[in-house]
């Protein structure tokens, strides 16, 4: 216990004496959250649209007007000739061009089916498919509107059957991707700082050869590892509080769930993440190498294999199997459940258990390797 306390005290002293690293540990995740939180968004809004109206009738103008006046499409260009379409799309002036054919009004008048052409720049697939989705909805609404108008004089409006799905969107009613992304970002940033900080602090002892001095002393590996990682648990908790506050203030991410389960999730996550940091330190000799491995091991799988951007169930089975050891996967899942859904414990325990088990495995391996070094 005394030995453990001595290490703990020393580690805090060293951290305090290095305000730059401490600042990085606390404020860098906050800074990155702000940057990524604003930059990363799956919401498609303000798609720039060009319009080429061959019909030039009241009906065609009315139809076009009905498509705009919402946050999704901005009419920024009116084209005169078909030849201008290619140029506008190629230059990226507009993402989408709507072409109203000649005879649009006449066809509507006759009650015939008519088509409008939408040319969509799908070089950004998300944007393209979202634009198409919006357009389909808007066109359907315009059609319905036209039909109703046509039937109205005949007094038959009330008899036209229409099925309208009414959506109740739970947990994230505005379907903002920030709600969904911020918990994930928090997990990734915490993963990065926790793994890098612990591995560096352990490897520093090796580089300065103070590790040898500790190995020849009666200090047990567990005392050393706990004494060296607990200060980082404390710092990471501060960081976590900061990024969660920022998530609320800047992105409106409200924590709906219980703070108890949030704390448990965070502690279990830190247990696993710091364990991974310690494990990395046992296989590296220099701080530079430790930093590179830690950054690689923490960021890459967090981004690609955690389910933050790419759904895990769509991955090949082999890759799905690999994601089992990706710590942030469980933390992201737990954070989403707690922050967005206010999920109770009986839906959270699988994540908790997984993080705990991974942490135990990392520490067990790290302690074994530390002993071997002795």
């Amino acid at each position, binding site marked *: 216990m005394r030995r453990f306390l001595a290490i703990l005290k020393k580690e805090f002293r060293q951290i305090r*004496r290095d305000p730059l690293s401490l600042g990085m540990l606390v404020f860098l995740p906050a800074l990155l959250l702000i940057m990524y939180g604003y930059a990363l968004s799956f919401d498609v809004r303000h798609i720039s649209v060009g319009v080429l109206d061959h019909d030039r009738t009241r009906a065609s103008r009315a139809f076009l007007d009905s498509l705009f006046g919402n946050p999704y499409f901005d009419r920024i260009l009116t084209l005169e000739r078909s030849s201008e379409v290619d140029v506008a799309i190629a230059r990226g002036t507009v993402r989408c061009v709507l072409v109203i054919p000649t005879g649009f009004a006449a066809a509507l008048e006759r009650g015939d089916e008519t088509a409008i052409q939408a040319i969509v720049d799908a070089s950004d697939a998300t944007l393209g498919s979202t634009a198409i989705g919006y357009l389909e909805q808007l066109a359907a609404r315009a059609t319905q509107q036209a039909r109703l108008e046509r039937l109205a004089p005949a007094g038959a409006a009330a008899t036209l059957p229409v099925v309208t799905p009414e959506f109740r969107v739970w947990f994230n009613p505005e379907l903002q991707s920030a709600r969904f992304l911020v918990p994930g970002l928090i997990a990734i940033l915490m993963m990065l700082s926790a793994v890098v900080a612990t591995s560096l602090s352990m490897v520093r002892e090796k580089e*300065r050869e103070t590790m040898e*001095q500790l190995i020849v002393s*009666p*200090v047990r590996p567990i005392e050393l590892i706990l004494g060296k990682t607990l200060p980082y648990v404390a710092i990471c908790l501060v960081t976590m509080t900061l990024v969660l506050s920022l998530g609320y203030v800047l992105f409106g991410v409200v924590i709906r769930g219980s703070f108890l389960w949030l704390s448990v999730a965070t502690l279990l996550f830190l247990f696993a993440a710091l364990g991974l940091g310690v494990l990395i330190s046992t296989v590296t000799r220099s701080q530079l190498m430790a930093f590179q491995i830690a950054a690689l091991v923490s960021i890459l799988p967090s981004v690609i294999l955690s389910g933050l951007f790419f759904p895990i169930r769509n991955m090949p089975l082999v890759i799905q199997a690999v994601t089992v050891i990706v710590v942030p996967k469980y933390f992201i899942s737990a954070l989403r459940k707690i922050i967005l859904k206010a999920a109770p414990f009986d839906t959270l325990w699988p994540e908790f258990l997984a993080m705990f088990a991974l942490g135990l495995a990392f520490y067990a391996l790290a302690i074994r390797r530390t002993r071997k070094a002795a």
Partner: protein
Amino acid sequence: MQQHPPAIEATDLTKVFGRFTAVDRVSFTVQPGEIFGFLGPNGAGKSTTIRMLCGLLSSSSGTARVGGHDINRDPDRVRQCIGYMSQRFSLYRDLTVAENLMFFGGVYGLANRALRDRTAEVMRVTNLAGIESHITGTLSGAVQQRLALACAILHQPSILFLDEPTSGVDPVSRRLFWELIQDLASQGTTILITTHFLDEAEFCARIGLISAGRLVSLGTPATVKASVSEDVFELSVGDLSDAIDRLKTDPAILATACFGPRLHAYCRRGAFTADSLRVKLGAAGVPATAIRPVLLSLEDAFMRLVVPAAQPAAGSSV
């Protein structure tokens, strides 16, 4: 001397790294309170031996007992009774002198009053009083050396391992450091020290000469010197390399070594006198300005006992 069990007892201690045998069946004993010096060129296996004894490395074969405890079976007991100081002065450079001492004291389970008393005591002994609040990294090598020693003796170990503690320290500080070591030994601490400074061997009660992983000579400095039964002549010659080439041709001249501007010739005992060697050299076309027989020094013994490949490293370190 034999009434006490030895403080350190190594038996056929061996360390193999892949295909390289760093330490090859090294056996020796060190009595309690003795200063035992490990001498040898760089890479001879001195540090590897010390690291095995401290539990920093496992041995490939052979055994050793330190403080009566087997290093392989009872490493925790060994750790309690040893202090270790490496040539890199493994200190926390970002902590103050006092914080380093407090930390290492805590690591050995000292606390409160006992820790404060011991810290004050070792600071007095190692002459560190007054600089408690200095940041370690800003101190000179000599002060860091004393602090590293202070950290290693805080818990009053009965056996102290010092791995090249004097490298990179000025001669005056080296001498002061040896005075500290001798004080510790006189108070009963067993000391195993490695060095490649041959003059430091004179401070050791016994020395082990290690070369290419093998212990080639073991005993007091006098017995180690006596183990080389050759005559040594010191020559002042005009052209050193020419003289070396010509001396080599005589089978009775076993080896030569440069000592500054002079040359030592190691000759089969009784093969030459100063005069007969002068005659021989003159006949061979090497006019020697001065030839005199000299007593074989520890450095001469070192030259003759270590394997030839290691000679340059040894010659340069005096």
